Every structure is written in C-alpha cells, then in structure tokens.
C-alpha cells in the first residue's frame, strides 16, 4: 500500500505539486496521465525516494522512501524515461546488478529479453535506444519488485515492441504488485491501465477505476450530437462524445477523450468523482 498525503513539491520558487493525496492499492496498474511538464516524473521520483518532499508525506508500506532503507529499495524498481548504457554485455550487467534485488531471476531476465527479441549478449553501449530500454524493462521485471514505477516506458519503442510491452507487463508482474506507469502516449497503454490518475498543474484531477469512470461518464460513438457534452471530437466514422452517464449503461472508455473531457471540465469532474 502506498499513501500519499498532502504532498507538495517545488523546484526552487516554482511550485510543481501541491496538495496531492492518494492511496495506491496492491494488485493495480495505475496509469499516470498528464500533459508534459505537469509533474509526472517529479511524482515518480518522489515515490522512489530520489527527491525529498517539500511538504506532506509518502509512505510505502509504512516507510518513507527518502530514507532509502535497503529493505524497501529491494522491493522497488524505478525505471526512468532515459536510461544510461553500461560498457558491458547486457547479461553481465544484469548479473552484477541483480544481486542487489533478492527477487531477481536471471532466467526471467533472459526470458523477457527473448520475448522482446533483444539479444542479451550484445554490449549495451552498441544497442539502439529501443533495445536499451527493453533491456532495462526486462531487468526491472526480472527483479520481481512489489512496487514498480515507470516513467514513459514505451518512449523509444517501435510499434511491435509497444504491443509486446503490454503483454509482458501483464504476464510478468505479480498479482499483488503496485505499478505506476506514466505516459503521455495514452494509446500505448490503453487496456492495461486501470485505475486512471490524471495529474494537472499541481493537483490530481481524477483518480478512478475504469469501472467507476464508465458508470459516471458515457462515451458515445454515434452520429447524433448530444447536448451537454463534456467533450466532443469528430472522428472518421462519426463522433466521440463524453457526457454524464444518466442511463447507467456502460460504454467503452476512450482514455484520450476522457483526458480531454477532464481537462475541459475540471470542477465538474472533481465533484462527480468526489467520494465525500
């Protein structure tokens, strides 16, 4: 369980996060969405203990990640957007780094690399950025962490690899793990993220499961323009419109449309999804 309580963080005078509170539960794959620069990376680095909170607390299983206690670090893997190669073969690198995570399995690392069709005997400094990313993703999952924080993991992956990534994440993470994956390429993670967290300038606009979202909002794909739509966009086959769900009928949640609808109706969404 991860508890974030009234978290605030500033880079010098610039306030990046303010009053962020949420509880993240085991067994869920959270999609952290938000425009560029809104604080997704900052939130992930704070969760990893790489930064110190300005105000408020973060507790992972009761521990403050900034303390960097090895007993907690062994359960976490943080995968940043940009990764650095090591001047050695991927297998050697994984072997020497894997000793620090008790759950690490070399077989699992090699297995996932094979799924990604990436040669583990290659020297990391000669890999393309996509191959390097896949190497790190394989390592992260092979550590079998309880808490996985990934910042834009599909950045730099070609299209087949993105699809492979979705399957790999689902297959190789434990049922009780908490995953937080940030992205601004929503389509890359469509169908695997649930719940959805939408972060905006310094606050959380939405934190809800797909089920709850489809109960409170209706996504219409027809041709008839609906009044009171929270957001509408013309698509080749018709429209996509987001309205309040008054009929109780569930529809397929389109995350991009959801994102836009939330941004255009911040106050309404907050009230709609408030749990008070």
């Amino acid at each position: 369980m991860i508890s974030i309580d009234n978290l605030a963080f500033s880079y010098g005078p610039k306030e990046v996060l303010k009053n962020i509170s949420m509880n993240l539960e085991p067994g869920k794959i959270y999609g952290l969405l938000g425009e560029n620069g809104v604080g997704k990376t900052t939130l992930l680095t704070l969760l990893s203990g790489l930064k110190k909170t300005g105000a408020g607390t973060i507790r992972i299983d009761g521990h403050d990640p900034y303390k960097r206690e090895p007993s907690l670090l062994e359960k976490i893997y943080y995968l940043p957007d940009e990764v650095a190669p090591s001047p050695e073969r991927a297998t050697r690198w994984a072997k020497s780094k894997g000793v620090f995570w008790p759950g690490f399995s070399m077989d699992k690392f090699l297995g996932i690399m094979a799924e990604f069709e990436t040669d583990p005997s290659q020297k990391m400094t000669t890999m393309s950025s996509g191959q390097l990313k896949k190497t790190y993703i394989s390592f992260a999952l092979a550590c079998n962490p309880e808490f996985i924080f990934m910042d834009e993991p599909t950045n730099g992956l070609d299209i087949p690899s993105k699809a492979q990534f979705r399957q790999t994440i689902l297959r190789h993470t434990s049922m009780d793990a908490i995953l937080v994956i940030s992205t601004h390429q929503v389509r890359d993670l469509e169908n695997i993220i649930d719940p959805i967290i939408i972060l905006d300038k310094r606050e959380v606009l939405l934190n809800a499961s797909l089920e709850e979202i489809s109960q409170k909002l209706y996504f219409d794909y027809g041709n008839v323009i609906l009044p009171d739509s929270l957001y509408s966009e013309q698509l080749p086959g018709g429209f996509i419109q987001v309205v309040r769900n008054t009929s109780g009928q569930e529809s397929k949640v389109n995350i991009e449309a959801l994102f836009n609808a939330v941004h255009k109706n911040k106050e309404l969404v907050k009230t709609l999804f408030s749990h008070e």
Partner: protein
Amino acid sequence: MEFDDNKPIYIQIADNITARILSGELKPGERIPSVREWGGNIGVNPNTVARSYELLSNKGIIFNQRGIGYFIAADALDIISSAERTKFIQEEIPAFVERARLLGIDLKKHIQ
C-alpha cells in the same frame, strides 16, 4: 485482439469467449485460462477480464472452482444458444422488420 468502440471492452471479451464456445474451440468442462493469463495474452488489464468472467459466471456459462480455476459449464452451449435465440427473436427480427419497412420492402415477396 482488436476492440471496436461501441461496447465496453469487458463485454467484447465475454462475447469473444462465448463465440469460441459456440464454434467448438472451447469445450464444455474445459478449463479456461486465469484472469491474469487471459489478460496477458490479449494485452488487457486483469480487472477488465475479471468483469468479463463475472458476467459469464452470472449467466451460468462458466463457473469457478475455488483454488483451481474457471471452467466452461457443461450446459454452456445450451445456455448460449437459448440466449442467442432470444436475442434473435427479441432484437434482431424486430430490427430487420423495421428496416424492411423503412425501405419499403414487402418481406412476404422475399421469404418462402
């Protein structure tokens, strides 16, 4: 698996499983993959697949044996067929008739 836009994904997955039972690909009494496995194969969050399984369970098409997994019910085919027949009679036929009427087609001329 490709998903179209009109129905919630969990319903589309349930439909897909139902179709596979109808076609004989999945047989009554057979064990189906766990929620995680199925999700992993098609790239969908287990929560969503869980709702599909719940839907199918409620209809009696599959059942859960605790500790072992989900299985296709022995009478799954019957349940599905009867549900499909009901749907055909209650939804598809009226829709068909209405469409013929809109187009001004006299059905009696075309049906033996």
